[in-house]
């Protein structure tokens, strides 16, 4: 019972492990490029939970600052990735990543 009632580091690590696994599953199995992006966002969120959890129980500020930069980079990454996806759609008329198989038209 102690395991479930005392919210500690392990609870957050468990959630982040599950989020990471699900994100990796989306990246591996989905064909739609946008769902793959969503999987990447899930992985980044899992990493962020870990940073903040260790930062809280360690008492330092490193994890908090790092997760802030992760969020900034995730915003930049999403903008660039969607621009690329839209370009792929213009060229191939699909966002199915398994049918995108040439570097030029």
């Amino acid at each position, binding site marked *: 019972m102690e395991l*479930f009632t005392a*919210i*500690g580091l*392990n*609870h*957050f*690590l*468990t*959630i982040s*492990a*599950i*989020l*990471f*696994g*699900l*994100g*990796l599953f*989306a990246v*591996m*199995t989905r*064909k*739609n490029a*946008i*769902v793959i*992006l*969503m999987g990447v*966002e*899930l992985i980044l*969120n899992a990493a*962020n*939970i870990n940073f*903040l959890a260790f*930062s*809280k*129980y*360690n*008492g*330092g*500020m490193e994890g*908090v*600052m790092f*997760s*802030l930069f992760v*969020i*900034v*980079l*995730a*915003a*930049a990454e999403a*903008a*660039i990735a*969607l*621009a*690329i*996806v*839209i*370009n792929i*759609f213009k060229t191939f008329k699909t*966002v199915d990543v*398994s049918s995108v198989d040439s570097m030029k038209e």
Partner: protein
Amino acid sequence: MSEFTYIIIFYVFAALTVFSAAFVVFSKNVIYSAFSLLFTFFGVAALYVFLSADFIAVTQVVVYVGGILVLLLFGVMFTNTIMQTELRTDVLHVVPGFILLVAIIAGMLYTFYTTGDWMPGDMQLQGSVVERIGFETMSRYMLPFEMASILLLVALVGAAFLARFDKVHKKEH
């Protein structure tokens, strides 16, 4: 707030996060995935509050829900014709992917729970963390902070350049 309420709220948000993330991954409809991702981001933001990182939680809501999710929805709308009734996606490698999913989660949990007890530090983060973020940003993390602004500018200019309407290309065809 009593300890019991705290635990219940934690488990509610944990369940919200995990189940909506599972729905994002397993749903066949891209729009459903995108809207389920909204709940995942809110759940994760709530978990950040539990980790006494309130500023990060607000940033998460503003940037992820207000920015990235809208971008993703724009992407879905752009790359599927609106009148198309089914916005479904195919899957591939489901069985290896599922094996990897189970193996990774089991492996990570095994490692987390068996490498001995974590020893929490004496000074845990308590209360609001906003003031300390301000101090850190303007002292130790000054250079990364400035570089992040340059990177965002470059990335957004690049994104606008990549996604622009290509007039020359249209004339040729």
